[in-house]
């Protein structure tokens, strides 16, 4: 056994540690990561730039569409945050700052592709055509999901960190077996990359060559822990070790995200296996509405990221090139307000679930114990004044 010889490298420069009699100490290669590359097609200042590998061919109409998506998604997010402040939602996980990563990747998908989100993918949901109102049920506490995943090929939000990456991989394996030319996109964050499930998903996807794109929004913070607490190398470089490509993209650049994700999805559809896309972005808000980021990060950092705002840069580009004008912006603002009003009213109109709904959908088949409990609870509720005799 010479395991110790391969792993121990604690020796100082002056006194090399002997690994044993007659065994030479081979040098351990440094794990210093190579300089990260960042795919970018639109600079923070709103300049279009080119990239040797990735490009995106979008019409002016599509550009306006992307801008509209970004604005509306941010507006919904702001309204939900306000609703939480007013006690109408128990919690809200804001996507502020991550709109481009979500809209870019969401719009890269085809209808037949399938998305597995975390609990923050409000922008992806929007692109998949899920009514933002549906997202609120979970946060208001009237349900645990609220939409049919198969209707828009958008799975339920998954709260347990990283668990959905395995589901996505399995779903992709199913597509592969079916001979479908579709792909799956698995969303997760930087913190999730530490989870066993995510690493296992990487291994399964790699070994089975599953058509899945691992889309990691590296927003720099896992609640209070900076990315340095999760990884010593840029996250996208991890893919190499699992045997598939990894790409870092400017997550605040909707065009670059669109280009890279489109390419990765197409690659997967064509049978070339998984890709890890690291969308390098920033969580501009708190982890959730009750979190207090001032306890663990500096305002300077936030200020510097504000300069890279995903919406502002696209707006600058579109305005400068005359692709949008004031009437367009005015109309969009009106549409935003209407959408926010729809979300607000819909939220206020959401009824609390009936107590007996607790017993619904637990099993597909009859379960006498649950039935008995339901009956007993109904009878119990009926004993209170003001309850209706049922």
């Amino acid at each position, binding site marked *: 056994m010479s395991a110790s010889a391969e792993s121990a490298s604690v020796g100082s420069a002056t006194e090399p540690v002997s690994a044993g009699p007659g065994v030479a100490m081979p040098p351990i290669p440094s794990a210093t990561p190579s300089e990260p590359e960042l795919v970018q097609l639109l600079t923070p200042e709103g300049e279009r730039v080119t990239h040797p590998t990735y490009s995106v061919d979008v019409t002016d109409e599509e550009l306006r569409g992307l801008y509209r998506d970004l604005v509306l998604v941010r507006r919904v997010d702001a309204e939900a945050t*306000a609703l939480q*402040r*007013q*006690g*109408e939602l*128990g*919690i809200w996980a804001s996507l502020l700052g991550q709109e481009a990563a979500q809209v870019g990747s969401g719009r890269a998908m085809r209808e037949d592709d399938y998305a597995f989100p975390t609990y923050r993918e409000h922008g992806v949901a929007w692109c998949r055509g899920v009514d933002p109102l549906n997202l609120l049920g979970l946060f208001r*506490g009237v349900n645990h999901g609220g939409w049919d995943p198969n209707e828009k090929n958008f799975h339920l939000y998954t709260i347990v960190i990283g668990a959905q990456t395995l589901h996505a991989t399995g779903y992709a394996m199913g597509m592969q077996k079916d001979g479908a030319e579709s792909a799956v996109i698995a969303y997760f964050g930087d913190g999730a990359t530490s989870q066993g499930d995510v690493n296992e998903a990487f291994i399964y996807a790699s070994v089975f060559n599953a058509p899945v794109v691992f889309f990691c929004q590296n927003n720099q913070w896992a*609640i209070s822990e900076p990315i340095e607490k999760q990884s010593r190398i840029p996250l996208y470089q991890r893919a190499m070790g699992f045997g598939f490509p990894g790409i870092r993209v400017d997550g605040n650049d909707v065009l670059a995200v669109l280009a890279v994700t489109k390419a990765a999805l197409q690659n997967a559809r064509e049978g070339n296996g998984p890709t890890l896309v690291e969308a390098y972005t920033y969580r501009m808000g708190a*982890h*959730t*509405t*009750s*979190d*207090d980021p001032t306890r663990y990060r500096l305002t300077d950092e936030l200020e510097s990221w504000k300069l890279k705002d995903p919406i502002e840069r696209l707006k600058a580009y579109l305005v400068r090139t005359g692709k949008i004008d004031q009437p367009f912006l005015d109309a969009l603002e009106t549409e935003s307000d209407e959408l926010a009003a729809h979300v*607000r009213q819909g939220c*206020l109109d959401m009824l609390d679930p009936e107590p007996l709904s607790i017993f619904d959908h637990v099993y597909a088949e009859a379960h006498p114990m649950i039935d008995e409990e339901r009956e007993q609870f109904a*009878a*119990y509720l*009926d*004993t*209170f*004044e*003001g*309850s209706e005799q049922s």
Partner: protein
Amino acid sequence: MKQFKLPDVGEGLTEAEIVSWKVKPGDTVKVNEIVVEIETAKSLVELPSPFAGVVAELLVEEGTTVDVGTPIITVDDGSGPAAAPPRDDMLPAIPEDPSAVGTPAEDLAVEPGLIGGPAPGGRTSVLVGYGPRTTSAVRRPRKGATPAGASAATAQQAVQTSMMTTPTPVQEPEGEQVPDVAPARTVPSARDTATSRALAKPPVRKLAKDLGVDLATVTPTGDGGVVTRGDVEQAADLSAGERPIGRPAADKSTGERETRVPVKGVRKMTAQAMVSSAFTAPHVTEWVTVDVTRTMELVERLRADRDWQGVRVSPLLVVMKALLLATKRNPEVNAAWDEAAQEIVVKHYVNLGIAAATPRGLVVPNIKDADALSLRELADALAALVDTARAGRTQPAEMSGGTMTITNVGIFGVDSGTPILNPGESVILCFGQVRPMPWVHEGEVTVRQVTQLAISFDHRLIDGQLGSMFLSDIARVLEDPATALLW
């Protein structure tokens, strides 16, 4: 037009001062626009408007302290003139007991909305939801006087019996204060020496209960001091018809000046029910003295009648019939007060309760749908009811659902009394003893069979006139049972 009520901004506080208005009448406000700054005992808080529209009126002046829930501003949102309050659930709930709110200690004060800080509705902010809510030591009212499944086990009114049933005084913890950690278990020594309860297996307990035997008084013969079925049966035979309820045989021999009898079982139930009734329903009691000579003659006739042989006929039977007939003429008396619904429930059936003294104490079984029974059927039902009660086998169902009650105190040789309503009922008739009395009959003083009837009724739903007419109708039937033919 919408009114914005001062919300509890999350600290379980009951009031706040209006510090400064950020808007004035005529201003247009948007949803979430800050309209006012308020000061609570803890902090200055800005309140966002839950509505959009034009400010119609500021209802509270700056510098004024108002209670949570007070309307502070009216916003015209175009919804019409009705100053409908906003949906209640839009406003954070006001905790029932502000002192119970789990707000952080002063030295730990955290900004509203942040973890550990106040959240809407008297909650405390957490990372992942609305935050914990406050609770209080108050029970939700249940339908009827008795909880489900418990039959008549407990009544809702406070009856302080715990001091009597506890071997040592109960240490009443202070509010929600959790107990201090003591170096060791703080169990008073008296508790350790307190005698354990009688040992018996469940079927034997059931038997003892059915036979009205107090297990604690039974001498156990089983291994390890366990009371056996035979022990209970023997004890039941010994006590049958001898010992009055609630007076353990021990009280004379011990020579103590007082005997403490645990309040439990039927006694406890009765006490709770009576307290509940006495302090819930305003009682009115009326009396009438009646010449029941003809009723007594009818009783004699029936007893002698061949068709009625073997049937137990008593004056009570005729009183029951009289009451049922009077109820037909005054149906509103057969009713109940539903406090929760704010309704009077008029019953179209009579479940006639008969208060019965039994070995276990007072029980009030009732005859279901007594109004539909013939006199003969009524007699049979009464006999069955009395037998069951005497045997101590009255089932809870037989005691529930009563609509009116008769208490027959005459059998104890008293004239009458002021009966207390059975909870949930509105009328109780007290039937005194029938005895020969000098009476003016057909213009002359003669000796007649006379009794006194007393009726108590719930004055919330039965007025004096109705109650009086009802009692008078009963009296008329008893005075001349033939009256029944006219009705």
